[in-house]
C-alpha cells in the first residue's frame, strides 16, 4: 500500500530538518561547501572576470560624460600629489637618517599573502577568496587591496577558501583615527556599501574630505591603513557624539587581486 501524501510530507520535512542540523552542527557543512567551491572555482573566476569586463564596458558607454569630468578632476589631483610625493620622499630620507642616528631598526614590513576574489555573497557584504586553511589563512586576518586600502577581515576559513567580511558589513566595527588630526572614533559598517565613523567627541573638528585610517587600539588591523574619506559630518544636540558618513576607499569591482595580511 502506498503511504499517504501527508506522511510523505512529514517524513520529507523531518529528513530536511535532520540534514540541516547535521550540516550546521558538524564539520560536514564546511566540507560540503568547500567541495562545491573547489569544483566551481574555475567557473566562478570566469564569471567574475566576465562581469568585471562587462561592467567596465557598460560604465564606459553610459557614463562617458561623467568619466571625462572625473578624468579631468583626477588629472588635477595627480598634479598636486606629485608635489606631495616629493615632500614625503624628503621626509622618508629624514626619517631613515634619524633612525640610523638613533640606532633604531627599520619598521617591520607586513607579511602578505596574495589571493583572488571569486564571488560575493548576496545576503551581506561578504566575499569569497581562493585561499583557505591549507594556505595558512586564519580567522581575523586583515585583507587589503594592492593599493593598501582596507577591504575587511577573514571571518570563516574552509580548507581551500575563506570568507572575508567587508568593512561595510553591518557586523563590522573597529577603531580608526583621522589622518593629521587627533581624532579617534569607531568605524561601523552600515550595509549596502555604507560606512560610518562614530563615537567622535563633539569638540573635535571633523570636516568633509578628511582621510580616515585604521588605529592600532583594537588590534584588529595594523595602524595607518586607509579606510576612506569623510563625506558628510552629522552633529546633533541630542547625540552625545558626532558621526560622519565615510566613502570607502576600496572599489570591489576593481579589486580582483587582494592581499591577506598574515603577520603585522
Amino acid at each position, binding site marked *: 500500500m502506498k503511504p499517504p501524501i501527508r506522511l510523505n510530507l512529514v517524513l520529507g520535512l523531518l529528513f*530536511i530538518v535532520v540534514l*540541516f542540523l547535521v550540516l550546521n552542527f558538524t564539520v560536514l557543512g564546511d566540507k560540503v561547501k568547500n567541495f562545491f567551491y573547489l569544483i566551481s572555482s574555475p567557473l566562478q573566476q570566469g564569471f567574475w572576470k566576465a562581469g568585471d569586463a562587462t561592467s567596465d564596458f557598460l560604465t564606459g558607454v553610459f557614463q562617458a560624460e561623467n568619466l571625462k569630468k572625473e578624468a579631468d578632476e583626477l588629472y588635477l589631483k595627480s598634479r598636486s600629489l606629485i608635489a606631495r610625493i616629493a615632500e614625503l620622499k624628503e621626509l622618508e630620507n629624514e626619517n631613515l637618517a634619524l633612525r640610523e642616528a638613533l640606532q633604531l631598526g627599520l619598521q617591520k614590513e607586513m607579511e602578505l599573502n596574495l589571493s583572488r576574489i571569486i564571488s560575493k555573497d548576496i545576503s551581506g557584504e*561578504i566575499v569569497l577568496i581562493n585561499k583557505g586553511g591549507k594556505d595558512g589563512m586564519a580567522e581575523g586576518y586583515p585583507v587589503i587591496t594592492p593599493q593598501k586600502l582596507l577591504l575587511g577581515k577573514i571571518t570563516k576559513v574552509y580548507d581551500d577558501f575563506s570568507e572575508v567580511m567587508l568593512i561595510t558589513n553591518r557586523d563590522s566595527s573597529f577603531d580608526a583615527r583621522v589622518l593629521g588630526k587627533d581624532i579617534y572614533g569607531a568605524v561601523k559598517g552600515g550595509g549596502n556599501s555604507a560606512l560610518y565613523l562614530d563615537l567622535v567627541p563633539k569638540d573635535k573638528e571633523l570636516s568633509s574630505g578628511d582621510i580616515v585610517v585604521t588605529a592600532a587600539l583594537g588590534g584588529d588591523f595594523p595602524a595607518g591603513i586607509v579606510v576612506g574619506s569623510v563625506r558628510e559630518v552629522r552633529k546633533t544636540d541630542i547625540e552625545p557624539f558626532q558621526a560622519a558618513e565615510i566613502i570607502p576607499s576600496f572599489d570591489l*569591482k576593481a579589486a580582483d587581486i587582494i592581499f591577506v595580511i598574515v603577520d603585522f
Partner: protein
Amino acid sequence: MFRKVILILFLFYILALIQGSFLVHFTIFGVLPNLVLIFVLLINIFTPLNDWFGVVSALIGGFFLDIFSAGFFGFFGFYTLVFLTLSLFFNFILKKYVEIPFIKSPRS
C-alpha cells in the same frame, strides 16, 4: 520527473554561480536581484496544483543558494527553509483557494 529534476539541478547551480560571481557587478540602486528566488517563484506559480516539482525546485534552489552564500547569521539551510515555506504556501494554500488568471486553477 527525474529528467526535470536533473535539469533544474544544473539550472540552479549555474544561476547561483552567476548570482554570486557575475551579477554582483550590476547592482540596481545598490540592490542585487535574486535570480534563484525569481526562478523558484516562477516555477511554483506556473506548475499545476498537486505537482511536487515546485517543492523540489524550491529545495534545490535554496540548497545551492545556501552553498554559495554565508547564510543568515551563518545558518546553513536558511534559504532552503525560506524557499520551501514559500513553495508550500503557493502549492497548498494560494493555488488551492485563489484562482489566478493564466495559471492552471484547482479545477483545471
